[in-house]
C-alpha cells in the first residue's frame, strides 16, 4: 500500500505531462487525487505494522499528516479544475508540455514528494523528499510568469534550498553523534532506530543536529525569523497552490522537526529542544501579529496567519505531553481552515481583481456563499467556538496551564488577542457594506465553492464532535510524540 501511494502521484504526474487534451488532463488530476485519498483510507484501515528498520513506513504521526495532505489536495485539485478553466494561459489549447500541462504535472508531483516526505523514516530520505517538495512547487508559484510571481518563486527556491542544505548538516551531525559508542556501529539512520538508541548518542552533537534541523526545516515550516519567503510565495501563487503550501507543505516540515524532537526527548535532552521550540513559536506568533495588524493585502494576511499557527504548533510540541493531543488536533484544524480561506481568497481575487483590502467591500452582496464562508473562516482561524480550532487552541492553552507554563500561556493569549483584533478590523469590513465596484451578481461556480464549503464543514464538525477513529489517531500520534 505504501508503494501504491507513491506510484499513484508518479503515474498521474507523468501522464499529465504527456496528455495533450486540457480537459482530459484535468480529469487525470482529480482522479489522481481521488485515488490517493482512497488509498490513504485503505492504509488507515489496515492499521500500522511495527516499523523496524524500514526506510519507508507509516506510523500514527505519519498517517495523520498524510490524511491532512491528501484531503487538502483533493479539495485543491477540484478547485484547480475551475481555476485552470477560468485562467486560460496557452494561446493554443490542448498542447503537450504547455504551461498548463507543466503546472498540472508539478502539482501532482508535489503531492508525491509530500507523500514521500511523510512516509520516510530514514533521515537521508526525508531530506531528499523535503528538498524535492521545494523543487516540485517552485514552478507552481511562478505559474502566472508575472514579475511578482517570479520574484516570489526565486526567493522561495533560494531561501528554502539554502535552509534545507543546512538541515543536511544536521543529518551529518546525527550520524556523528552515533559514532562515539562502538556498540552503535552500523546503526541504520532511521528516526526509529536513533530514538531507540538515543541514550548512547553523544549529547553535544545531537544538540547541534537539532539546531541545524530547526533552522533548516524551520525555514520551510515558516518559523520566524526564517519565514521571509512565506508571505511572498503564499500571496503570489495561484490560490489552490497557496492552500496546499500552507495546509500541507508546512506540516511536512513540522513533521521533520517533530521526529528529531522525539529523538532528543528519548536522549533526555527534552529541556533543550522544548525551550527552543517554545521560544521560536512565541517569536513567530508575535511577529505574525505585528504584520497582521498593519496588513493591506489579504493573501499576505493569511500567509502571516500561517506563521502564527506554525508558532502555536511549535509551542504545543515543545510544552510537554499535556499539549501534544492539542497540537495534533490543531495541525488538522489549521490546515482545513487555512485551505478554505485561501480558496475563498482566490474567489475574491477573481471577482474583485485585487488583493488590496481597502478595495474589497461587500463580498456577501456579490458572492453570498463565499462571503459567508469568508466570515466563517475568519471566526475559525481566530479560534472562536463552535469551530475545531477553538477546541484545539483551548486544549493547548489548558495543557500549558496544567504543565505550569504560565508565562508562555499568558504571552500566547496576548498574541492571540492582538491577532484577533487585527484580523477582525481587516477581514470583516471586506464582507459587509456596499460593493466597491459595479459587479454583476451571478450564481457562483460550483468548482470554486464546493471545495471550501466541504473544508469549512469539516472544521465545524471537528469543533462539535471528533469521530472515534480520528480521535484514536490523534491520541496515538500524541503518544508517539511524548513517549519519553
Amino acid at each position: 500500500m505504501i508503494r501504491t501511494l507513491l506510484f499513484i502521484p508518479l503515474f498521474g504526474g507523468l501522464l499529465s505531462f504527456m496528455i495533450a487534451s486540457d480537459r482530459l488532463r484535468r480529469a487525470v488530476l482529480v482522479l489522481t487525487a481521488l485515488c490517493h485519498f482512497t488509498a490513504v483510507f485503505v492504509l488507515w484501515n489496515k492499521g500500522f505494522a511495527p516499523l523496524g528498520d524500514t526506510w519507508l513506513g507509516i506510523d500514527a504521526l505519519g498517517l495523520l499528516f498524510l490524511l491532512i495532505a491528501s484531503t487538502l489536495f483533493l479539495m485543491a485539485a477540484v478547485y484547480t479544475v475551475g481555476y485552470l478553466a477560468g485562467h486560460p494561459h496557452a494561446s493554443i489549447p490542448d498542447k503537450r508540455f504547455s504551461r498548463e500541462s507543466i503546472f498540472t504535472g508539478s502539482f501532482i508531483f508535489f503531492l508525491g514528494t509530500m507523500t514521500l516526505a511523510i512516509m520516510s523514516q530514514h533521515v537521508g530520505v526525508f531530506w531528499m523528499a523535503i528538498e524535492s517538495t521545494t523543487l516540485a512547487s517552485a514552478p507552481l508559484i511562478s505559474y502566472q510568469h508575472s514579475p511578482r510571481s517570479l520574484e516570489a518563486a526565486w526567493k522561495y527556491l533560494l531561501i528554502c534550498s539554502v535552509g534545507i542544505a543546512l538541515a543536511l548538516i544536521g543529518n551529518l551531525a546525527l550520524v556523528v553523534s552515533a559514532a562515539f559508542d562502538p556498540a552503535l556501529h552500523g546503526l541504520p539512520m532511521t528516526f526509529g532506530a536513533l530514538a531507540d538508541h538515543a541514550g548512547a548518542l553523544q549529547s553535544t552533537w545531537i544538540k547541534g543536529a537539532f539546531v541545524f534541523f530547526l533552522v533548516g526545516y524551520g525555514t520551510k515550516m515558516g518559523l520566524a525569523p526564517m519565514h521571509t519567503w512565506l508571505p511572498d510565495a503564499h500571496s503570489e501563487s495561484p490560490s489552490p497552490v497557496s492552500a496546499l503550501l500552507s495546509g500541507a507543505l508546512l506540516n511536512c516540515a513540522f513533521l521533520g522537526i517533530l521526529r528529531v524532537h522525539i529523538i532528543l526527548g528519548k536522549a533526555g535532552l527534552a529541556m533543550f529542544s522544548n525551550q527552543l521550540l517554545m521560544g521560536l513559536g512565541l517569536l513567530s506568533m508575535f511577529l505574525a501579529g505585528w504584520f497582521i495588524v498593519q496588513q493591506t493585502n489579504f493573501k499576505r494576511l493569511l500567509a502571516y496567519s500561517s506563521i502564527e499557527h506554525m508558532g502555536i504548533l511549535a509551542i504545543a510540541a515543545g510544552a510537554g505531553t499535556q499539549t501534544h493531543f492539542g497540537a495534533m488536533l490543531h495541525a488538522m484544524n489549521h490546515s482545513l481552515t487555512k485551505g478554505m480561506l485561501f480558496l475563498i481568497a482566490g474567489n475574491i481575487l477573481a471577482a474583485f481583481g485585487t488583493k488590496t483590502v481597502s478595495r474589497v467591500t461587500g463580498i456577501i452582496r456579490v458572492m453570498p456563499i463565499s462571503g459567508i464562508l469568508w466570515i466563517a473562516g475568519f471566526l475559525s482561524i481566530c479560534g472562536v467556538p463552535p469551530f475545531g480550532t477553538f477546541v484545539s487552541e483551548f486544549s493547548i492553552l489548558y495543557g500549558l496551564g496544567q504543565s505550569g507554563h504560565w508565562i508562555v500561556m499568558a504571552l500566547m493569549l496576548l498574541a492571540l488577542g492582538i491577532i484577533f483584533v487585527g484580523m477582525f478590523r481587516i477581514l470583516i469590513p471586506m464582507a459587509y457594506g456596499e460593493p466597491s465596484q459595479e459587479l454583476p451578481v451571478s450564481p457562483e461556480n460550483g468548482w470554486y465553492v464546493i471545495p471550501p464549503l466541504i473544508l469549512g464543514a469539516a472544521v465545524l464538525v471537528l469543533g462539535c464532535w471528533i469521530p472515534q477513529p480520528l480521535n484514536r489517531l490523534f491520541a496515538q500520534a500524541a503518544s508517539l510524540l511524548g513517549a519519553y
Partner: protein
Amino acid sequence: MITHIIVALLVLINLQMLGSSRLGGLIRAVALEALLMGFLTLVIHTGQFTWYEWVVIGSTITVKSVLLPLLLKRALHETVVRRDVEPLVGYSLSLFFGLLFVGISALAVVKMPMPPIHTSPLVIMAGMLTVCTGLFLIITRTKAITQTIGYLVLENGIYALGIALAAESPFIVELGILLDVFVGVFVMGIMIENINREFDNIDTTQLTSLKD
C-alpha cells in the same frame, strides 16, 4: 600529505572566490572545487572501494564539476550583459571575512568533541570554511546567478563535511541528494532565464516589489 595539499588548494580557492570579480572565473572555481572534493574522497577513504562507491564518486564529479558549471555557463551567456559580480560587500572586505572564516573553522574543529573513529580535522575545517564561503556569497552577491553559485559552494562544503566525518549515507540516499542538487540548480537556471526575460537583468536587488 596529498590530503594537506588538497586542503590548502581548497582554502585558496575559497579565498579566490571571495576576491574574484568575474562571473566566469567564479564558475571555473566552483567546478575545480568540486573536482578537488572528488579527489579528496579517493584519498581519505580507507579500505577497498565497492562498485557503488565508484558510481557515487563518478557521478558526483560529473554532475558538480562538469554538468552544472556548463549549465551555469550557458545561463551566463544567455542572460548577463555585465560580466562582473557587483557585490554588496567589497572584494577586500570579503577577503578579510574569508580569513575570519578560516580562523573560526579552525577554532571550531579544535573545540568540538570528535568521535573516536577515523576523521580528518583538516578536511572538517576545509568543509566548514566552504560552507561559510557559500553562505557569504549568497548573502553578499546580488546577481541571481552568483547566488546559485553560492548554493553550489555550500553543497560542496557539506559534501566535504560528509566525507571528513565519515558520515556515509546509503547508496540510494547519496544519489538522491545528488539528484536533488542537480535538479535544484537546473530549476534555478530556468528561473534565471525567466527573470532575465521579465526584468531584462538578473539583479536580485531589483526584486523588491514584495515586502511589508
